């Protein structure tokens, strides 16, 4: 029984860090700031949550603290991404030429 839980924990840990790696890869490959926020911070959030779950399976006694760290990340990370995206848009950071539409810039009347 204990062995199965530990194995599950290890697999979750590897899955989580795989998402971290994908996030890092997205961070490198994506063409502009907004796409990098998407790929970078979101994938790493899920990755960290999965890793924390894996650690909780390996060490059940730490579960409450890990849950709390997970909740904190789950709540703070989107807020910081949104604030950063807003700031990046406001200062007119260069968007990738692939960008097909930008309703926000149109509504604010400052076509970049």
């Amino acid at each position: 029984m204990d062995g199965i839980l530990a194995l599950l924990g290890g697999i979750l840990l590897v899955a989580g860090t795989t998402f971290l790696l994908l996030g890092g890869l997205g961070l490198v490959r994506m063409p502009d700031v907004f796409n990098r926020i998407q790929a970078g911070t979101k994938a790493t959030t899920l990755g960290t949550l999965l890793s924390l779950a894996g650690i909780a399976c390996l060490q059940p006694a730490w579960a409450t603290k890990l849950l709390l760290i997970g909740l904190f990340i789950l709540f703070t990370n989107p807020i910081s991404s949104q604030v950063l995206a807003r700031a990046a848009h406001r200062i007119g950071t260069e968007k990738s030429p692939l960008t097909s539409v930008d309703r926000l810039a149109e509504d604010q009347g400052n076509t970049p």
Partner: protein
Amino acid sequence: MLKAVNFLVVWVLLVFFWVLLNGSLATDVLLVGLIASLIISLLFSKDLALITEFRATPPAFGAALRYFLYFLKELVKSNIRLASIVLSPALPLNPGIVKTRTRLKSRMGRLMLANSITLTPGTLTVELDGEWLYVHWVTVESTDIEAATAEIVAGFEQHLEVMYG
């Protein structure tokens, strides 16, 4: 009256947070936690009035549960979709910022909505202005306001509407 209820809710939530933080229910831990949370909730219960915007009715709790499950499903699904985009050599992107509309009025509900949209990769809230929600979308499928709203916002909104109104 409403103020007192609000204050009590904040206090209880903070004590719950404290117990999670300590991971223990010993009397001394609880005592310190009660005092510390009392001081903080005295100072901040006015700012935290938005916590009690949650409608504590049975359908709201059901909606909260469904919302949570739906959120988890979307989180995993969209992460896998994004992973496939990142891994494919051609990088099939069609990014853009679209405009969507939300019906939610409560500040807490709108925050939860924006956070959920942001946490599901592929979509990222850039600006929240009145009822308008500007969302950055990695693969734009439609630039029409109603269609984009149906695609991005509606799934979360139907649950949050029951919870917060």
